[in-house]
């Protein structure tokens, strides 16, 4: 395949990867916007969901939908446990931002190494087999059923999330709390409850992403930090709390990372993501679509 075709396929690959990143990032962005929580453990929750699905599908040999349910349940429980059991009590006690960040970091490490001890340090994945056969000829080889599913699922989830935020009571409550938590409390909204719902939502959102990762490149415990870092980077680039921003920034990061492989070896790939972030933070800390804090 000639160089241009390779580039183009890398681009499409990047779109698919970026879509998965966006799914993970949007949950992070939501929690940050709503509860001012920088939930580093989010990466751990994503991987845990992946491992849950793997366990159900590969080890117990049950159909995928059950795996997804298991993933959702595990992720939701874990997310809720952290929010209600760790973050909320600390916030209510007036813990400093640094203390909360440290707690989140600690939780991430606990999750990562619990997974390592349970499943081993090696990567696990599920073969996506026939989904990988290309749908289109040579130039667009990267477009296979799996990629199409990835993009489709992502768009569906984002559409659903946008609708939830805009049209449902929960969405309105979340927006009120994000705008002014103290005022929302006065008006009768139960802020703690809303924040817990957000944690549940964020955890639920990563489950499809975890599934896509599992069937794609696989999941490894040591990925935990990288996953959440990418998510945080995307959330920052897209703007805290911006759903559209998370999607666009995720695609951007995915594409840039993939295209970098055209010229640079995989090891340097991370440089592009962080380079992007660095420049953005110098120029426009509120991100592409965020408003000034």
């Amino acid at each position, binding site marked *: 395949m000639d160089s241009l075709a390779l580039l183009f396929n890398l681009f499409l690959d990047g779109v698919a990867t970026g879509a998965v990143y966006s799914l993970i990032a949007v949950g992070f962005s939501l929690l940050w916007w709503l509860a001012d929580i920088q939930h580093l453990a989010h990466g751990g929750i994503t991987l845990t969901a992946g491992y849950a699905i793997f366990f159900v599908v590969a080890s117990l040999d049950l159909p995928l939908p059950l795996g997804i349910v298991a993933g959702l349940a595990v992720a939701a429980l874990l997310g809720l446990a952290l929010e209600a059991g760790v973050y909320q009590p*600390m916030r209510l006690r007036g813990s400093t931002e*640094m203390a909360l960040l*440290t707690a989140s*970091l600690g939780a991430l490490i606990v999750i990562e190494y619990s997974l390592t001890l349970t499943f081993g340090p090696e990567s696990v994945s599920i073969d996506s087999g026939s989904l990988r056969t290309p749908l289109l000829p040579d130039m667009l080889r990267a477009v296979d059923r799996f990629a199409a599913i990835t993009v489709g699922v992502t768009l569906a989830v984002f559409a659903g999330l946008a609708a939830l935020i805009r049209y449902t009571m929960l969405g309105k409550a979340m927006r009120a709390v994000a705008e002014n938590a103290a005022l929302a409390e006065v008006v009768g909204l139960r802020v703690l409850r809303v924040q817990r719902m957000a944690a549940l939502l964020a955890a639920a959102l990563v489950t499809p992403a975890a599934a896509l990762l599992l069937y794609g490149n696989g999941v490894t415990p040591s990925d935990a930090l990288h996953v959440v*870092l990418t998510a945080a980077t995307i959330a920052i680039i897209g703007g805290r709390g911006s759903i559209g921003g998370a999607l666009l920034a995720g695609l951007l990061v995915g594409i840039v990372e993939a295209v970098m492989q055209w010229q640079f070896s995989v*090891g340097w790939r991370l440089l592009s993501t*962080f380079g992007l972030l*660095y420049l953005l*933070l110098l120029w426009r*800390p509120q991100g592409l679509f965020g408003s000034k804090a």
Partner: protein
Amino acid sequence: MNYAIHILITVNIFVLLALALDLLVGYAGLMSLAHGAFFGIGAYSTALLTKAGWPALAAQSAGMLLAALLSGLIAIPSMRVRGIYLLIITIAVQIMFSVAAQNWIGLTGGDAGLANIPPYSIFGYALRGVYFLVVCTACSVFWFLLCRRLTTSPFGRLLRALRDDEVGCAALGKNVVAAKMAVFAFSAALAAFSGSLFAHYTAYVDPRSFEIGVSILVLLMVMLGGAGTLTGPILGAIVLSVLPEAFKFLPLPPGAAAASRQLLFGLMLVLVVYFRPQGLIGRRRSQIATHG
């Protein structure tokens, strides 16, 4: 006997790292996970330069200078961003260092690392074993006293005020940016100093010793002991250098020991900030006044 010397040298190396991070975390209130990288810069600089024939002290100084300059990469954005933004930048710097150490094979030897680093020598005398320990201990004492002088000085007061309220500092004419750059540079240089000692001691460096895990461990030492006290992080360094040794006596399967240790560190991080955020010997800070 040799085992005891090994432990004590390790303790000293971590004491220096903990002191360096405490200046940032405990006094200036800036969270950083980049110290593994600065540690590594000191180590690799020493490795490369002493193998090329440089005297140990010159190589060490070069490493310190390089780390101080690199810290500017973090300090500059810290003017405009703080909290998690800053943390992510420090993580980014740390990871980029790891990536460079692994992939810039021509310079660092990649995963294979650099071996046969000459021992620490002053005026031509190579220092090993117990003599090296004496030097390390003297260094720890020296840097502790220096840090204590700094933190009890007007500069230290400026750092504490900065941590409380940057805008208030600016309103009184203080140059917040310059102060942050200065403390980052000093902290990075001290971490690099420690890295040099490490390189001379182990005579071998590879990327694995300077990954984000080290940064996290040092953070735990600081938080466990009590950020902002200097003596607290020293205690934390002692405890957490000795504790992993205890793991070696437990009957665990090979890979599990390392993972269990990390799991424990993570758990300790959460427990410390949850139950006793001021650490073992710190005191609770006053609540921040509401500014409306």
